[in-house]
């Protein structure tokens, strides 16, 4: 195969492969009633290498954990982190964030 063909093939693969974005985990948390609770969960999750960012919603009593690309956190680990922070898990929902946009 000529070098030009290889370049064209690589370009084609690149523009048709979805980007591997991180996963979003929505955790329903019991006992989360104040800013101290929210701060505690932020601090504990922020120490995890796999965590890109975290957002706490006191109205919904949920914690939104954005996981870094190619990383993962198991339900067991999420539950342990919440319990270690002093709270209980009500639910865990995962959303894959694979993008249809080409990675350029």
């Amino acid at each position, binding site marked *: 195969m000529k070098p030009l063909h290889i370049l064209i093939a690589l370009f084609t693969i690149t523009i048709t492969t979805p980007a591997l974005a991180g996963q979003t985990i929505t955790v*329903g948390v*019991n*006992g*989360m*009633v*104040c*800013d*101290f*609770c*929210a*701060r*505690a*969960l932020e*601090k*504990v999750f922020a*120490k995890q290498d796999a965590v890109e960012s975290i957002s*706490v*919603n*006191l*109205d919904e*009593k949920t914690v939104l954990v954005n996981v870094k690309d190619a990383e993962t956190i198991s339900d067991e680990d999420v539950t342990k982190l919440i319990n*270690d*922070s*002093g*709270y*209980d898990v*009500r639910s865990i929902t995962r959303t894959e964030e694979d993008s249809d946009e080409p990675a350029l």
Partner: protein
Amino acid sequence: MKRLICLGIGLLVYAIPVETYARPVSYPGGWTVSQTNNGEANTLLLHYSPTARYSLGYKFEYWRDGDFTVNALQMNNLLKRWNNEESQANLYLKSGIGIAHGDHETSPAAYTGLATDWEDRRFFASYENRYTEAGDVDDFFTQSARVGVAPYIGNYGDIHTWLMLEVSHAPENDEKITITPLVRFFKGVQLLEAGMTNHGEVLLNAIYRF
């Protein structure tokens, strides 16, 4: 006997869902500094929480009625937490050991007490008691209860406001019952409380977590 009666009353009242002044245990690896000033005492507490179950710290207290100070190592244990979707309740044991300094005496000192609280985002209630033994310097029992209501409900990061009423009982003080209406402002990791007792004394408390 008098002390036992007071302790009994305290434990009885304790069965009613009521609070601690503010959560005495933080998240794992969290530090807390708190300062309280009221009609009874001025205190400063710095504590560290290795886990969410207990904290260790240093506490300084100046007790106005007895005119003495206490320097102590304090340990707070979360005995039980009830996490519900809309509310949280806690039971703590708070104990300290140190040295008391009076006008002419210095004595080993120790104190212990139970604290409990219940809160959702609208209402708050708490109760705590404490027995202090400081040898020749002083020994006494105190207890206090609070109720509170939030006039509006804010989300994380907003300024939260609470209107509260505290009733404290110090059987050995000249003023045995003190009633303090106060307002609590709470934002992120900072908490500030200000009030005025029925004896005309100012209450000013602050907490910062890091």
